[in-house]
């Protein structure tokens, strides 16, 4: 569904942050993206959520070559990709409900059309009582669940999460991971960047390991947590 071939990426005139990256993500697959801090995880995810064009190499999204796509075609493509940013990036002046509804609104939906769906999703992530709270009054775990709900409200084909468990306690990390596994089970291709080895072992999914800008694919192990099997 998504293919990278010999992709390189540099910021401005700097050295290449990513070098000769090749991989493909099958529909409905689940991958962890690991590697030490500064290895290029965020950079690779940015390429995956169409925030940057690669400096070189071929990238194919949903059967379309990125190099031949016009700028005007990108918004439609982005709507098929859900993103959980490293630092939530919620709108502080909007309620949890409004933040989650935003991607639907961007597509032109009216409030009445989406209210049920948004409320249902917020309940599913355990925020039925916090729907009309603003991010400032939410805990880190709650904010992350709002961010996840916003990322998947569109039923994206690809879900990308950048260290979604970075700011929460281990118990909340497990709960959030279960959300990703559940979403993956209904067919969403998922890539989760993390440096939490325990979580990776718990799920046992295949790993994309980045080190100094180079990528190695590692097959998944046996999940330690049977109910979390991807």
């Amino acid at each position, binding site marked *: 569904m998504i293919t990278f071939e010999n992709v390189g990426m540099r910021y401005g005139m700097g050295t290449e942050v990513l070098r000769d990256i090749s991989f493909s993500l099958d529909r409905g697959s689940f991958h962890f993206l690991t590697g030490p801090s500064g290895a290029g995880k965020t950079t690779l995810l940015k390429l995956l*959520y*169409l*925030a*940057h*064009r690669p400096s070189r190499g071929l990238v194919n999204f949903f059967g379309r070559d990125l190099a031949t796509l016009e*700028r005007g075609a*990108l*918004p*439609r*493509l*982005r*709507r098929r*990709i859900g*993103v959980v940013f490293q630092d939530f*990036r919620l*709108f*502080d*002046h*909007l309620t949890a409900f*409004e933040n989650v*509804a*935003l*991607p639907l*609104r*961007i*597509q032109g939906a*009216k*409030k009445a059309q989406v209210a049920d769906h948004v409320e249902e999703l917020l309940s599913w992530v355990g925020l039925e009582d916090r729907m009309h709270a603003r991010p400032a009054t939410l805990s880190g775990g709650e904010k992350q669940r709002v961010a996840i709900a916003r990322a998947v409200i569109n039923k994206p084909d690809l879900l990308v999460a950048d260290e979604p468990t970075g700011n929460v306690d281990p118990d909340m990390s497990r709960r959030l991971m279960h959300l990703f596994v559940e979403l993956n089970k209904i067919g969403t291709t998922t890539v989760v960047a993390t440096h939490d080895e325990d979580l990776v072992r718990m799920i046992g999914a295949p790993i994309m390991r980045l080190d100094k800008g180079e990528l190695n694919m590692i097959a998944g192990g046996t999940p330690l947590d049977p109910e979390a099997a991807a």
Partner: protein
Amino acid sequence: MSMWGRTLQFLPKQNQREGLLPWVIGVMLFLCALSLTSALALGRGLERWSAGLTSNLSVQIVVDDPMVRKAQTEDALRLLRATPGVAEASVMADADVIALLSPWLGEIPTDTGLPLPTLIEVKLTAPDAVNIKGLGERLMATASGARLDDHQAWMTQILNLAAVVRLLLAGIVVMVVLCTVAIVIFGCRAGLATHRESIEIMHLMGAEDRTISQAFDERYLAHGLKGGLFGVLMAGLTLYILIRLADDMGQGLIQASLPAASSLAWLALLPVLSGVVTMLTARITVRRALLDLM
């Protein structure tokens, strides 16, 4: 204005840095409106004044014999009054002539019997209503002692000065207007800088450029209108008070250089202009920021 309105308004209602923008625009438009009106009024005043100067002539009857002088004066008056383009011609009273001469001759009593020149004041209907040279020749033919003085020598200097002053005023107006536009643009940019993050998130969620910039169009049009309205209202109020004060004081310099209240209607255009400039600046800045993103 909410995110469910006609435009998707994803910007917060209140923003500290942006909250200042309407005030900055207001103050700039206040200054702009005041300098525009005063420059225009001063310019018009100067124009009227110099037109008044050029439509005044004087005729001197230089004859020693009082009887002949009187006869020539009558002839000259008759000719002048029959000339098309002459609005008025009258003999200046002795007292006025003395007042006119006193700077050169000092105080002179009226009854010295000293021969005073006879002066005829001539008002034209328009500055160039009459061929001055031809009129002078015809006057000489009718009354040999008549000398036409069109004040050319010193008036040229005064008119040049007036032209320079008007040019200066125009320059000041252009500078104030450009400065206002520049400050509005800088103010917009400063406000927009605080929204970079929001713009990027909307962009990454798949919002079209148009969707994003519409939110700013709406917001910044309101800022510009609000600021413009405030500035122009304050300027209008200031001018109104000045005009009232000048009316109470009667004739005078202030009154002469103030615009008529009825000529201020065009001020109403300024808020609209400031709204449009603000909106376009926001739109261009946002679109440019979006093009920097992928």
